[in-house]
């Protein structure tokens, strides 16, 4: 997933990076096709070049050698709401048919089955970033027809469509999973299968989401990671296997 997510990044993109897989994907992209990627962390580090894999989003290695440290007020007002962020990376416990993401609670809010960490910056990233890339392993539990709680808005839902809500950013434009790639339909924003990994059957993918998944007529054949990419990930970027 990290390799595939890395490919979604274009050279020169300004990326709002979360910890874990997004961080790995960004650093892989920087080491391969996108050397001019600008990494911004919500903690305030801008243009970070961590010389070790950061365990947390506020790791000191993100500061040392970075281009700038901004206050969090500036990060959220001038950088994110200011429209300066091209790509946001999000995960989440649940992602629904229209790309709405839940990272708040499983079950009802007042009496949760599982209390998750909550939004952090995920709500505003989904609203403001030009493009949001979501990385998550596909399973019926993680991809229900509708989420228990909308932490980060997708393309449509009970509050209206993205256009009706005049959301400034593009929302989740690519969902990178462990078996294939989903994208919102240009018509109604419903997520549909647009790419598939080697040796994966479309029918198997359909079993793993909680709604009748549409597949595009022409599916991208997503190539497997190269040995160079795997080497970079396993031996250079995350040698201690913190996130792999």
């Amino acid at each position, binding site marked *: 997933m990290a390799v595939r997510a890395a490919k979604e990044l274009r050279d020169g993109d300004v990326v709002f990076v979360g*910890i*874990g897989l997004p961080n790995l994907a960004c650093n892989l992209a920087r080491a391969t096709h996108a050397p001019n990627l600008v990494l911004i962390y*919500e*903690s*305030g*580090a801008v243009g970070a070049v961590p010389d070790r894999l*950061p*365990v*947390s*989003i*506020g*790791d*000191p290695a*993100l*500061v*040392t050698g970075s281009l700038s*440290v*901004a*206050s*969090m*007020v500036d990060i*959220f*007002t001038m950088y*994110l*709401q200011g429209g300066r962020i091209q790509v946001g990376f999000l995960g989440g416990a649940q992602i629904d048919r229209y790309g*709405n993401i839940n990272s*708040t609670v499983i079950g009802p*809010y007042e009496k*949760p089955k599982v*209390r*998750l*960490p*909550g*939004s*952090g*910056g*995920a*709500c*505003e990233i989904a*609203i*403001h970033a030009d493009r949001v890339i979501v990385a998550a392993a596909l399973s019926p539990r993680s991809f229900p027809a509708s989420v228990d*709680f*909308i*932490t*980060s*808005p997708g393309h449509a*839902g009970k*509050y*209206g469509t*993205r256009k009706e*809500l*005049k*959301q*400034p950013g593009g929302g989740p434009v690519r969902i990178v999973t462990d078996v294939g790639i989903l994208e919102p339909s240009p018509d109604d924003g419903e997520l549909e299968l647009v790419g598939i990994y080697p040796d994966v059957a479309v029918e198997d993918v359909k079993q793993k989401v909680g709604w009748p998944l549409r597949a595009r007529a022409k599916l991208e054949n997503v190539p497997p990671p190269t040995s160079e990419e795997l080497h970079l990930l396993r031996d250079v970027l995350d040698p201690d296997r*913190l996130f792999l």
Partner: protein
Amino acid sequence: MKEAIGRFVHDGDTLVIEGFTHLICFAAAHEIIRQRRKDLTLCRLTPDLIYDQMIAAGCAKKLIFSWAGNPGVGSLFALRRAVEKGVPHPVAIEEYSHYGLVASFAAGAAKLPFWPLRNYRGTDLPAVNPRIKTVTCPYTGEVLATVPAMNPDVTIVHAQRADELGDTQLWGLYGVQKEAAFAAKRVVVVVEEIVAETVVRADPNRTLIPGFIVDAVVHEPWGAHPSYAQGFYDRDNDFYVAWEAISKDEAGLQQWLAEYVYGVDDRAGYMDKLGPAVRERLAADDMICEGVNYGF
């Protein structure tokens, strides 16, 4: 520290100990636990281990937050026990996103009653937090979200250095430390190093908080451990990972508090208990930048 907490942190206060991953003042939290403060409304973007410990110790009545996990590791189990099961007692929550709570501090610092932000459309957050409202722009008619001002009774800021009057210099990640200080009725600054006023005055652009808004300055080396202080010591990631198991087990957590908080007199005692190997492992390397010219 004893005296500063005794004088400036009272039962029932709204308390902010900020610092985004960086410069989180665990030393102050431990002293508050030792002095058995209760009914506190605790506010932080990320409750982190610091509020997990205070909740386990029974200090908290309410929690205001925007991301409640153990960063890069997992859950805050004391917090989850309090919220999910009311153990050791129920803790009310008021939940924002980071931007919302950041804006709430900014409003508090500016002594404005609210802050407008383009946010929350299409999400369930306003449905569960009635404090998130809206305002209509008088120019464009756009409906924007609002958050109310956060004005804590007391904010505790950890920083690298200050002079004796509290003129405070801080580098690396700022978080919302400045806003949290200006928003507060009382401000306690805890530093790794007390420096001469001339040191502050030699580089005034480095100063984040002026001494005249500070009520107490405490010198407490290693006061942020297991958080970190850029240029002084690294984050103790091993401890953050270990916290997963400690906090999962209610009895284990109480045992940890008994040993590392109640069982020591102060931060120096805590550091002694951790032993010199921890200090050696975490002590910062030198990467000192060049100065700039303030002449004219």
